[in-house]
């Protein structure tokens, strides 16, 4: 049975796709070096359309409208520019209600596309542009450490990582977020209290990395102005030992925090290489390390993360595989005997294991 992989790697070469929601313009070329805050592409988003019923405003038949039009499809117009007019002493004018572009004419109407804002796609991670994807985005190649999580609030930022964790299973103490942490990315314990989010906003932190979150805080977390990466899941869970060790030994380093979740219904999201939200720790290398494996099959000796509700944040090693074993609750499933790090031996369905690597 193929095994889901969770990447917790001290050093790897990664390829990450960065995409815009709509087509736009790619600014950076293939082979160029980028920093996380560099804009690699931009597009106009949030445009609105104004439909103007020229026939009604001029009080003429729909079929007669073309002969009174003063603008063409594709034409840029300023506010109050004349869109159409009837001749004569008592002729009427239809002024443009806003600046924009004429995008459609027909049926006695004109459609003006107006407004919109510039969407800037930032690189997110430091690396080399390896590929461009039409007018939608780029693929960036980078080397460093990577820790993947299970949930993110959809945001992305870059900053120096500070740790407020003493142990992997503590609760995030909001009182520890002070002014000295302004502009940093914080590694903290289980996110239980809304006060953590309030203080983090007040102190303008640039991101939070936590093992778990109280589901009641999900809406607030989604509205937070900075990225929040959850490594283990919902309800109080300790951070898994591999992630804790890797992150706590890299404090004070600059990290990229990508808490974007793949939008699975969007066809274009299939091009996104990052299936999981993650924290990336850029590291200089003399020789490029290999890319992480994408496919794995369960086998004895593998280090796995166990996702039991009753044994959160545990890691262990597969001792052997047990096809169609009967679990303690009576369910029959393909399973593995796993020795946890504390020496305890458990029987786990394969569906509840992820290979760490």
């Amino acid at each position, binding site marked *: *049975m*193929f095994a*889901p*992989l969770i990447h917790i790697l001290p050093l790897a070469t990664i390829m990450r796709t960065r995409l815009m929601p*709509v*087509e736009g313009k790619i600014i950076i070329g293939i082979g160029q070096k980028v920093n996380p805050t560099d804009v690699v592409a931009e597009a106009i988003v949030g445009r*609105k*359309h*104004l*439909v103007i*019923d020229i026939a009604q405003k001029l009080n003429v038949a729909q079929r007669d409208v073309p002969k009174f039009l003063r603008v063409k499809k594709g034409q840029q117009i300023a506010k109050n520019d004349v869109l159409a007019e009837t001749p004569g002493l008592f002729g009427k004018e239809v002024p443009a209600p806003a600046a924009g572009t004429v*995008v*459609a004419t027909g*049926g006695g109407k004109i*459609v003006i*596309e107006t407004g919109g804002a510039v969407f800037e796609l930032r690189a997110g991670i430091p690396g080399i542009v390896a590929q461009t994807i039409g007018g939608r985005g780029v693929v960036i190649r980078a080397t460093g450490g990577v820790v993947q999580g*299970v*949930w993110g609030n959809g945001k992305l930022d870059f900053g120096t990582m500070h740790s407020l964790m003493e142990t992997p299973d503590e609760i995030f103490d909001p009182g520890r977020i002070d002014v000295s942490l302004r502009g940093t990315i914080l590694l903290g314990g289980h996110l239980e209290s809304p006060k953590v989010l309030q203080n983090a906003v007040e102190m303008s932190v640039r991101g939070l990395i936590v093992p778990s979150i109280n*589901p009641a805080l*999900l809406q607030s977390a989604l509205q937070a102005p900075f990225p929040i990466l959850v490594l283990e*899941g*919902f*309800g109080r869970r300790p951070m898994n030992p591999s992630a804790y060790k890797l992150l706590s030994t890299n404090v004070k380093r600059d990290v990229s925090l990508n808490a974007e979740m*793949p939008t*699975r*219904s969007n*066809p*274009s*999201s*299939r091009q996104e290489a990052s*299936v*999981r939200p993650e924290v990336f720790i850029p590291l200089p290398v003399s020789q490029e390390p290999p890319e992480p494996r*994408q*496919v794995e099959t369960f086998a004895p000796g593998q280090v796995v993360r166990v*996702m*039991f*509700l*009753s044994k959160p944040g545990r890691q262990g090693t597969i001792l052997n595989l047990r096809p169609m074993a*009967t*679990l*303690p*609750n*009576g*369910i*029959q*499933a393909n399973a593995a005997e796993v020795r946890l790090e504390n020496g305890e031996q458990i029987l*786990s*369905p394969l*569906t*509840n294991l992820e290979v760490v690597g």
Partner: protein
Amino acid sequence: MPASLVDGNSLLAVDVGAVTTRAAYFDVVEGQYRFIGMGQSPTTNHASGMRNLVLGVQLAVENLQNLLGKPFMDEEGRLLIPSQPDGSGVDGMVVTLSAGTPIKTLLVGLLPDVSLHSVEKLANTTYTRIVDSLSLNDPRRLDEQVNTIIRQSPELILIAGGVDGGATHSINNIIETIGLAAYLMPDGQRPAMLYAGNRALAGAIHNTLGKIASELVICPNVRPTLEVEALGPAQRELAKLTINIRQRQMSEIDELRILSGGVILPTPYAQGRIVRFLSVDGENKHILSVDIGASAVSLAAAFGEDLHLNVFPQFGVGEALTGLLKYTTIDDIARWLPIETPLETVRDYLYQKSLYPHYLPATREELLIEQALARQNILLATQTMVSRLPGRYRRTLGLLPSFELILASGSVITNAPALGQKLLMLLDALQPAGITTLALDQNNLLPMLGAAAEVNNLLPIQVIESGALAYLATVISPISNSSYGTPIVRAKLIREDGTTMTSEVNMGNLQILPLESGQTARLELRPLRNADVGLGPGRAGAVDVIGSSLGVVIDARGRPLKLPSNTTDRVKLLKKWLKTVGG
């Protein structure tokens, strides 16, 4: 053209679910089609990080090969179709598909209570999420409507409106709005459209929307007259369109389409087909099928030819679980637990399961939480389905209509380690009334057989006759206004060997009349205090029943089922019921 048995063609049926991909092999044994075996694999979709469904299909077929010792693929993993002289390969393949997120759908109709209502029912027959609707009564300005459609970026627009031969002006205006919005959307994001309105407009629709929609399907009017609703033809076209939309999202589906010769159907549509077929074949027997999966709860109610198919993506036990609390509460889920568990534990399980839809309960507590979740989701889906049924099928108190046969599938139910757990989940969630037989589709074969019927109409009948469905129990569920503890029915079970068993069942009780598997008996039912055992209020009668390891079940717990509000009392009662059925 359906094949005949003379051809004796073997068939591989593949069901690509949101979490699991199954490959089932059917072949002729001693002149009859039989289900031979099944292989499975995790579905290799985006959620699994693999992003190619075909890999999961190959792995499921590989497992099937290993199980049967019969090669279906060549060394490079390509399916061998048709079967080879050396016995390898298979003659044909059909596919059902439920993987993928709900399709963002815009509904368009003229009148909210007429065409818009019908088109909504149509949308509910597949995996859709309705993002908005447009009708004659829409108060928004034209540009507001256009901007909203563009912002919501629907993947599918379902359009109805006008009776055949009726006026065309009003629907024309709405069509223009749709056309304009779709025209202004970026090329690759334009929606597919299905038109099932006044047929006089078909040509104009083709001209207006044909070049704008990513795909346009024109089918017979869902409301040919004000009094008549005809969803069937549109439902079939929508099933095809659903697969085409999925193919735009997952291009590898094309590979499955080629292998299956085009027989690739949405799972609930295929399930509905087979349920209707069984209903018609059973002389219009009323049949309900319930399937609970990661992607949706699907209910197909067949009253002869009259099929009512309802798909509820919002009640799937996968990714959708984070949104479940819009429809219910943690307390309402936890009330089904026969153990005292903190509500936070239930809440955390629900959210964690949304991250890992393939997660299997690892402890007894987790198993009971999962079963509680299944009960609540099926209950919500059933209540909604009942409210949508035509008045002629509805009963008082919003109870489930009378079904002679209920077929259940979905791994939450079929994986339950005890038969009693399976039975009780269904009784609690569906709350059937009267006399009902419950059966399990243990291998989730029904949709596969529905798809198989597209190429071979003998195969489904013969496979079902060969015992592919597991009989669970016959259940008598009396309806009564009597108070708790009052006797409401006397039952006498007369076995084939002449031995009898008599029992008086009190209101509030769940009782088992032992009858071993395979044995038949006559069950005489005498209702007391005007109770209705399914034969009419106060009417006595007798029915033939078949035994199972659960015996014959009399569920006199009341309809609708009411649980004590006090947690200690409720847990005690739920434990007692679970013990009664051996769960």
